[in-house]
């Protein structure tokens, strides 16, 4: 523009040095000028700019949709071709059926004392993964607590009332009937985890579902005396610690090639399978507490 004709104006470099030196007077004059210019232009152009942004947004949205559909379709195509090339389903000669699964099946019973080979695998052969998995659950419930746990000030929030509405008699009657059976079944699944299908995770979820049912039918007043924040935290943490130390013992002895002293028991009995039964119980309790914790954070914002 006409900066050069104006004696007050200065060159670019000079302005830069002044700016570096912090001489704000000149700088701010210039800034103000520029700012007023920009705002003036902005007022005029605001509408057109907004329109353009809207249009660009809608275009990019469309491009994004087309691109994602295209990518996904290509992706499915490639994967279908991959599946076509892969080994046959159900064939005993597949590469996956190798010495690893063979040892799990043929020596699993004598090496771990558990009849359920899946349980033996996840709680003994590959126990580190399962430890990680339990920690994932723990992490998730802590995250939910960070997000949804109420602080003391806003305990009297309105929205929690929507969960306090009067329950029907049918629900109460059914819950009274079903709750013991559900919990009993859950305990059965946990305790028989090493000799029949199931295990700590499935059983724990079933017990958790039973607790959720009870809490939904009878409200949280009754259940609160047993299951409150403190008791649930302490139970979860102590079960995790039992898990942690027993598995830590087994990893430590294994890593240092020391014979573990835990008896395996007779395969098929309830008291067998070495550490698998206590671990299943611990996992079951942790999972039940976690599921109930999810439920009560989601409804009441507190346990």
């Amino acid at each position: 523009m006409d900066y050069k004709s104006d004696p007050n104006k200065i060159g670019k470099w000079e302005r830069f040095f002044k700016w570096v030196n912090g001489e704000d007077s000149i700088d701010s004059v210039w800034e103000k000028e520029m700012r007023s210019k920009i705002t003036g232009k902005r007022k005029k152009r605001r509408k057109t700019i907004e329109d353009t942004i809207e249009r660009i947004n809608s275009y990019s949205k469309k491009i994004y949709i087309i691109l994602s559909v295209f990518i996904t379709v290509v992706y499915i195509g490639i994967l279908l071709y991959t599946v076509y090339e892969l080994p046959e389903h159900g064939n005993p000669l597949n590469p996956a059926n190798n010495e690893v699964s063979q040892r799990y099946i043929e020596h699993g019973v004598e090496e771990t004392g558990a009849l359920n080979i899946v349980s033996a695998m996840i709680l003994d052969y590959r126990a580190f993964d399962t430890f990680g998995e339990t920690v994932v659950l723990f992490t998730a419930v802590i995250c939910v607590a960070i997000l949804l746990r109420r602080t003391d000030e806003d305990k009297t929030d309105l929205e929690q009332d929507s969960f306090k509405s009067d329950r029907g008699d049918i629900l109460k009657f059914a819950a009274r009937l079903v709750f013991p059976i559900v919990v009993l079944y859950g305990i059965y699944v946990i305790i028989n985890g090493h000799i029949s299908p199931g295990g700590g995770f499935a059983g724990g979820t079933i017990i958790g579902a039973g607790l959720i049912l009870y809490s939904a039918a009878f409200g949280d007043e009754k259940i609160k005396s047993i299951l409150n924040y403190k008791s649930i935290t302490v139970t979860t943490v102590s079960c995790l610690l039992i898990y942690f130390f027993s598995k830590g013992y087994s990893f430590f002895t294994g890593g240092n090639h020391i014979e573990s002293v835990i008896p395996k028991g007779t395969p098929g009995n309830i008291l067998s399978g070495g550490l698998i039964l206590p671990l299943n119980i611990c996992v079951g309790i942790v999972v039940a507490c976690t599921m109930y914790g999810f439920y009560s954070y989601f409804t009441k914002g507190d346990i």
Partner: protein
Amino acid sequence: MRILEYVLLIFLILCAIGATVSKRLLVTVIIFMAYSTVMAVIWLFLEAPDLAITEAAVGAGVTSILFFLTLKKVDSINKGTREK
């Protein structure tokens, strides 16, 4: 037996598509519940009873409950707000 497998698989895919396109969120969650149940049955077919128990308890049970609670919390159930 073979035919049942196909029926279940096709049902599974239909459920997945249905959960995607249905207008109401409540319907979506219910379809997803059906999806999980069928998945548990398929796992029984594939001789994985451990997984079937777990999936029935988790997918059809707790996960769906959590979805319902979320929907309840955002008032989608009570007011019947249609997703736009």
